[in-house]
């Protein structure tokens, strides 16, 4: 135990690597594999052909068997590598099976069909990423019946953008009121808002559903957006930040006869930009990835968000794995881009506020 602790807490010594450094890097590399490989595997699988996916081809690259048009105008014929008895090889096209043999012809010579044992044939494969997995459901040429990517994407984007804008404005207004005004019941109100953190959203599912339904917002994107825009975490974050903005700025603006709204919009909001951007990032992440609440409010597929569409598509027994994986990649792409560009803001924002 002592050794383990020492290894975990030791800082790197000068000079050559201590054995604990080796262990550290071993841990890092092992966990890199556990974290990254599953995601990489999905990326790699998403460009494989449906046939390779059905066979669960364990190879990393997207291999596809070559095929040539049939000289008689039938189905395309698969290409194999035939190993002759003397060890030389030749590319052949497969015509049809006959017992344990196969009838084939050498490529370019479709007239001389000959028989070879099937065991002498190996598939002629090339690396061929199948980008159609991505383009078909999105561009709509052979759009999958059940997965309307563009619509889901639009719904998700609409929910994310609207909910984030409203979250920012509504919570900034509340944060402004709670940080820059003295009024009766202010502290009680701040406490009440923070206390809502203790109400787990999961235990008010039924009454929330009934409220939303009585407001006529079922199967409407607004039913997903509105209930989520007042987040106690957002109010708290912004209030704490706005407390650091000096009151003299507000006084000076009031001297110049600026209205309270103008002070909020023109002075407070620009100055609170760092806190607003943290909340914006969190909100985009929350709303884009949201699953349970949309699942309850949205039951018709025209209003599905991407997450709902994906989970429904996954639940159906189908052989559209190639579309599912490609669409999963497209779904995680926006948050990945946000993450790549704003990684520092996200990690420091979360570490400082303890929010997710």
């Amino acid at each position: 135990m002592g050794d383990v602790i020492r290894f975990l807490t030791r800082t790197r010594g000068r000079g050559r690597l201590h054995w604990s450094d080796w262990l550290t890097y071993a841990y890092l590399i092992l966990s890199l594999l556990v974290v990254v490989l599953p995601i990489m595997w999905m990326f790699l699988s998403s460009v494989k052909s449906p046939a390779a996916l059905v066979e669960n081809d364990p190879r990393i690259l997207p291999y596809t068997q070559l095929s040539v048009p049939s000289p008689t105008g039938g189905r395309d014929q698969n290409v194999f590598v035939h190993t002759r008895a003397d060890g030389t090889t030749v590319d052949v096209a497969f015509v049809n099976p006959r017992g344990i043999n196969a009838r084939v012809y050498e490529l370019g010579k479709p007239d001389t069909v000959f028989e070879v044992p099937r065991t002498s044939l190996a598939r002629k494969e090339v690396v061929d990423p199948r980008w159609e997995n991505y383009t078909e459901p999105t561009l709509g040429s052979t759009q999958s019946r059940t997965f309307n990517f563009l619509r889901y994407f639009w719904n998700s984007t609409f929910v994310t953008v609207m909910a984030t804008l409203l979250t920012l404005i509504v919570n900034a207004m509340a944060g402004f009121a709670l940080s820059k005004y003295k009024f009766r019941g202010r502290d009680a109100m701040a406490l009440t808002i923070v206390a809502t953190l203790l109400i787990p959203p999961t235990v008010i599912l039924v009454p929330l559903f009934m409220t939303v339904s009585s407001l006529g917002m079922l199967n409407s994107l607004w039913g997903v957006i509105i209930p989520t825009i007042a987040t106690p975490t957002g109010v708290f974050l912004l209030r704490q930040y706005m407390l650091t903005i000096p009151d003299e700025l507000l006084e000076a603006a009031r001297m110049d006869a600026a209205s309270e709204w103008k002070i909020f919009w023109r002075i407070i909001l620009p100055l609170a930009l760092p806190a607003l951007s943290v909340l914006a990032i969190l909100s985009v992440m929350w709303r884009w990835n949201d699953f349970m609440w949309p699942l309850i409010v949205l039951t018709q597929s025209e209003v599905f968000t991407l997450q709902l569409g994906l989970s429904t598509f996954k639940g159906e027994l189908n052989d559209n794995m190639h579309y599912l994986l490609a669409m999963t990649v497209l779904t995680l792409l926006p948050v990945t881009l946000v993450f790549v560009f704003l990684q520092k803001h996200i990690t420091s924002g979360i570490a400082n506020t303890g929010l997710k």
Partner: protein
Amino acid sequence: MQVRPQAAFEWLWKSAGDVLDGPMRAIQSHIGAHRMAYVFLLPNLLVFGLFSFWPMLLNFYIAFTGGQSVILADRPLVGLDNFRELLACPSYLDPRTCGVAGYSFWTGLWNTLFFALVQVPLMIVVALATALILNRDIRARGFWRAVYFYPVMLSPVVVAVIWDWILKRRGILNATLEKAVETWNAITPTFLMMADYRAINWLIDARSGWPMFWVIFVYTWAHLGFYMLILLAGLQAIPRDLYEAAQMDGTSKSRQFWRITLPLLMPTMIVVLVLSLIRAFQVFDEVYVLTGGGPGQATKMMIQHIYESAFIGDAKRYGIAAASSVLVALLLMVLTFLQLAVTRKKAGN
């Protein structure tokens, strides 16, 4: 003339504010500047009231009503019937002895308890180990932090699709294990050979504990980075001089860990414990998409029971769902108070 995007944005920003300035100014001249605070608070309070406080109260009421209507007026009061149905069990440890609703409730409860009790300690230990490693003087720390954190950004559905694809019976995990056994058998002497690997149905095999194992694993995989980040921030807040002073006194590394690192990290650890426990009791998304609660009911969690009672199937048993929510809320409350008590005791020391 060229329009700069930034200028366009500023113009949009200003005019958006000015549009609202008219009505706001009118309100202000009517009620006075200092009462504008209430106006600023109003939207937030409306949304909170309508979608948090009101539903919370409503939930208690619905728990005492029956029927299948979503309209409150059409719901007959049934007294304690819903609770009776959930709690009337000859043996709580064996949910099969309960009624239909009770079976679902107690299965979900025990599964969730098991999940939380295994997952939370596991997560905390691994997150702490990872945070301690990243707190060392390693190269490219930012890169490693990003690697561990990235899964947190993924949606539960994406996480479930990724792992379902790996854990299929003919998926990559089984293929890799099979290959490993094959290779091992090819290079080792006969007496060390292993039996041929038979593919396991990781998420479907009901008799093994694998589905629950993978549910816990995948959930931990997806959320580890978040807790690791909080712990790392806690570690970095510990003043370096403390370690330097300990070094001067010849204190051993393990003693430094127990006497400096752990006590000073305790407040952060408690935050992590509270957050992860409360979240673990509300686990739903990942598990629901990954296994659907199956095989059978092996990974059916509390929230899935509530969700299914109310929204799945022909009989929409909102009353049962609300009553279950009340019981879960009670449980969460007891937990929170227990944690507060523990925290206070620790703080008292």
